[in-house]
C-alpha cells in the first residue's frame, strides 16, 4: 500500500506555510464585509485576539522574506498589526 509522508517529519518548511493558510482562512471570512476597512480591521483584531505573539512574529518573519501566498486583505492586516504595539482591548 502506498505510504505517505508524515506531516510532522517535514514540519519546518510547512509550519510557517500553515500560518499563511490560517491567515488566508481568516481573510476568507472577513472578505464578505462590504467595507474593505472593516475586513482588514476584523482580520487584524482576530489575529491579535487569538494568535500568540510568537505566531504573529513567525508569520511576519516569513512575509519579510516572501509575501507570496498571503492574500491581500490578511497581508494588509498583518502589516497594520506589526505597526501597533498592543493587542486590541476586548
Amino acid at each position, binding site marked *: 500500500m502506498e505510504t505517505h509522508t508524515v506531516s*510532522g517529519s517535514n*514540519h519546518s518548511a510547512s509550519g510557517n506555510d500553515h500560518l499563511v493558510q490560517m491567515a488566508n482562512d481568516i481573510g476568507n471570512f472577513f472578505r464578505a464585509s462590504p467595507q474593505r476597512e472593516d475586513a482588514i480591521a476584523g482580520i487584524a483584531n482576530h489575529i491579535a485576539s487569538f494568535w500568540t505573539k*510568537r505566531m504573529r512574529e513567525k508569520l511576519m518573519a516569513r512575509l519579510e522574506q516572501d509575501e507570496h501566498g498571503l492574500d491581500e486583505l490578511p497581508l494588509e492586516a498583518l502589516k497594520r498589526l506589526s505597526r501597533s504595539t498592543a493587542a486590541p482591548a476586548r
Partner: protein
Amino acid sequence: MQSIVEQDLGTPARLSAKTVTLTIDGEEITVPEGTSVMRAAALLGSKIPKLCATDQLEAFGSCRLCLVQIEGMKGLPASCTTPAAQGMKVTTQNKQIADVRRGVMELYISDHPLDCLTCPANGHCELQDMAGVVGLREVRYGYEGDNHLTAEKDTSNPYFTFDPSKCIVCSRCVRACDEQQGTLALTIQSRGFGSTVSASQDVPFMDSECVSCGACVQACPTATLSENSLIEKGQAEHSLVTTCAYCGVGCSFRAEMKGEEVVRMVPNKDGHANHGHSCVKGRFAIGYATHSDRIVKPMIRAKITDAWREVSWEDAIGYAASEMQRIQAKYGRDSIGGITSSRCTNEETYLVQKLVRAGFGNNNVDTCARVCHSPTGYGLKQTLGESAGTQNFDSVMKADVIFVIGANPTDGHPVFASQMKRRLRTGAHLIVADPRSIDLVRTPHVAADYHLKLRPGTNVALVNSLAHVIVTEGLVKEDFVRERCDVASFDQWRAFVSDPKNSPEAMEEVTGVPAMSVRGAARLYATGGNGAIYYGLGVTEHSQGSTMVMGIANLAMATGNVGREGVGVNPLRGQNNVQGSCDMGSFPHEFPGYRHVSNEAVRALFEGAWGVSLLGEPGLRIPNMFEAALDGDFKGLYIEGEDIAQSDPNTQHVTAALEAMECIIVQDLFLNESAKFAHVFLPGSSFLEKDGTFTNAERRISRVRKVMQPKAGYADWEITQLLSNAVGYPMNYAHPSEIMDEIAGLTPTFTGVSFARIDELGSIQWPCNAQHPEGTPTMHVGEFVRGKGRFLLTEYVPTHEKVNAKFPLILTTGRILSQYNVGAQTRRTENNRWHDEDRLEIHPNDAEERGIVEGDWVGITSRAGETVLRARVSERVQPGVVYTTFHFPESGANVITTDNSDWATNCPEYKVTAVQATRVGQPSEWQRRYREFSEAQEDLLKNADVFAVK
C-alpha cells in the same frame, strides 16, 4: 425497581394553573386540575395500594388494586385513572375495598414464586409490600393450577436479567420503553393468561431493539427485571445523588451503595436534566472505575523508551515540577503549558488553568472543546453575546418545529433525544440536516418532515440558502429584528443572503439538497410556530464551523426564535463538563467567564485575587502547541484527563509533536494513548471519588459527590494543587467548595453559585447572580447579552479538502450510543458487547464498485495517512460518503483525518476528509507500528506494581 429512597406518588404531576379541591377520607386537599385521585391521596400521606401505577408513567388502570369509592360514582373506580374533581368525596379504605384488594392479590400470588427470602427484590419488592398492605394470609386457589413458574430467564443482556416467572404483567416495562425511552422494544404478546412480556418478536433482549437504557428495570415493581449487580450484591444501604460523567446531558443519579461499593446507579427522579431517565452508559457502564487497567500509583521515567518506575507521590510531583522548571529555564517561559479536562469537575479545570496562568506564567492552556464546540463559543459570542446555548432541555416540550443540524441525539445525547421524541410524538415537526440517515429521521412514531441530506462540508451553503428563502419570501420577523437586533448588521445580512447566488436553486449543485426541500424546510422553520435549532459536531467540526454557528444564530434571530421557551439555539455539548471547562477559563485567550486576557480591568481582578502578574497575550491552542513542539519551542505539557494522541486529528502529526517534547505529565485513570508518550504518570480519580460540580449543555451546574475514597489517594484537584505548590505557586484549598467560592467571587455570571446554593436549588443554570438569583433557564429574554443581536455575513467558502480521482470519497466521523468518545471508559465495560470495533459504513454502490462486501477489511487512505477497518455496507450513508466512529485506538480513525480546521478556532475538520477505500487483506502500516509500539509500552509497565486490581 425504583430507588431505595424515593417516594412514588402513583401518577405523574400535572402542571395546570387551575386547581380543584376534593376530600379524601375526610381530609381536604387542593391539587392542580388533572391530578389523579391516587396522587392527591399520596400527597395527603395516604398511600393507596398499587402495582401497575408509578409516577414516572401515565396511568394504566390494569392491576385493579387501587380501587376506591367515590360518592356519586358507580362501582369502585381505579384511583390512578380517575382525575380529581371539585367537591369529590373519596373513601380509600372500607371492608368492600379491602376484600377486593385481597382478592386481587390472591390471584397474583397464586401464579408467583414464593422464594422471597432468596429473591433479589427481597425487602424492596412492591408485590411483597402490597401483600403485606392488603393483609394477605392465604391463597385459596392453591398452587397446583397452570402457572408461569417454570418460564426461563433471559440473561442475554450483560447488565440485567429478565425472569418472566416473576412477572405480574403490569406492563410498566412496556410503558417505560414507550413513554420514557421512545424505543418501543417491548410489548405484551398474546392475551389473558397467555400474556407475557416480549422483547421485539419474542427474542432475547440482546437481539431486540432494546437499547439497554434500563427504564424497564427501574419501572419493574418485582424482581422480574433486575440489575445483575443487585442480584450479585444485594440491596444497597444508602445512596448519594451525583451527576453522570459521560455526556453533556448531565443526568442526575442516585449512587446506591453498600459501604464504598456501588451496587447500582439509579436515575434521580428529581434530576432537572433527565427527570428520572438514563442511558446504558450512565446507568450501567461504571465498571471502568474499578477495572484491572486502573493505575493507582504514580510513575516516572526519563525517556519514553524507559520502563516506568513506581515512585511516591512526593517524588512524582517533585520530578514533574523540577522538569517543568528546567524546561522553562532552558527554553523560555512559553515553552510549557497545560490541557484541562472536560471530564473533570469545574473546580479541577479552574485549578489547572490557574496553575498555568499563575504558576507557569503563561496562557498556554486549552481544553478538548478545541476539537468539538470551540466554534460554538466563538460564533454565539459574536452574534448573541454569550458562549453557550440559550435554553434548557425542557424547552423542547414547547417547540413546534425542531431543527436538528449535524447532530445524532439518539446516539450522542440519548436521554435528551428521548425527551425530544416525546415532543415529536405529540405533533411537533422535525427537520434534519445530516449527510446520514440518522435514527431520528425515521424511528417509531417519529418521521422527519424534511431530511436535508447534504454533502459533508456544505453546511454554510445550506444555511445561506435557508436564509435566502426566509428573507426573499418575506418570512422575517421584522418587529423582533427592529426591536432586538442591530439593524445595520441585519440590513447588510439581508442584502447578502438575498443575492441569487445564495438561493436554494443555485446552491443545489453544491449541497446536493433539492431546492424545493430547502424552501419547504425554511418555510416550516420560519412559520411553523416556535422553532428550535439543536446542533452538534456536524456543524462545528468543519473549516467553516464558526461561520455555520453564526449562520444558525442569524436564522434564529431573523425568525424571532430566541429569548423565550420553545425556541433557541441549542448546541448539544458532548462531554459531561466541556461547557464547564470552557466556563472556567480553559481557553488560552480567556479568563473564567469568557473575558479576554488583554482586558486590563479583568486581568487586574485576577492578579489581585491570585497575587501574581498575569500575561495579557493569548496563549497556544492545542494544535498550535503541536506546531510549536515540532518547531522546538514547546517542550513540556501537563495533560489532565484528556487523550490527545487518540482524539486529535492527524495522529502521526500529534505523536511526532509529543515525541518532540521533553516532559509530558499525564494525569488519568489508565495508561491511555497519550500516556505512552509521557514521562510522568499521575493516577487520577473517577467521578465517584471526588466532590465538585459539572456543567452540562444547558449551562446547568450540578453536584458531583464523592461516594468512595480516591483509589490513588488524591482527587484530581488535590493533585493539581500538589503540583502547583511544587512549582512554587501556593494553593491551599481544603475542599472544592472553596474553589467554587473563589470562582464565584471572580466571575459575574457565577456570583450566586455556591455548593450550598446548588444543594438548596438542586442545580443552577448560569448566569446566577443578583439579576438572576435562581439561575437562568432561558437566555436573551428581552435583550441579548451583547445588547442588540448582531448579524454576521456568512459567505460559503469551500473546504480545502477536495475529492479527486485519487481520493473520491468523503469520510465523516461520529459516535455510537454504547461507546463514549475515545472509549477509555466504555471499552472497559460490558458495552463492548454492542460495539466492539469501529467499522467503516459504506454505501452499497460504492462497495460494489470496489468489490467490498459486509465484513471485508477495507484500507482507507487519505492525504494524511491510512488505516484499515472492516466494512459495514449500509444505505444510511449516501453514495460518495463513508462514515466511521473513533472509539477504539487501534482503528486509527484519526490517522486519516487532516490538519484542516475552522478558520476562527482551529477546531479540526473531522467531518470532511477525502479518502479512497480499497479491499485489503492485512492491517495498515500504521496499525502494525501502533501494535508494536503499544505492546512495547505495555511491556514497560510490567515491573511496576501500580494497578488497582492485582
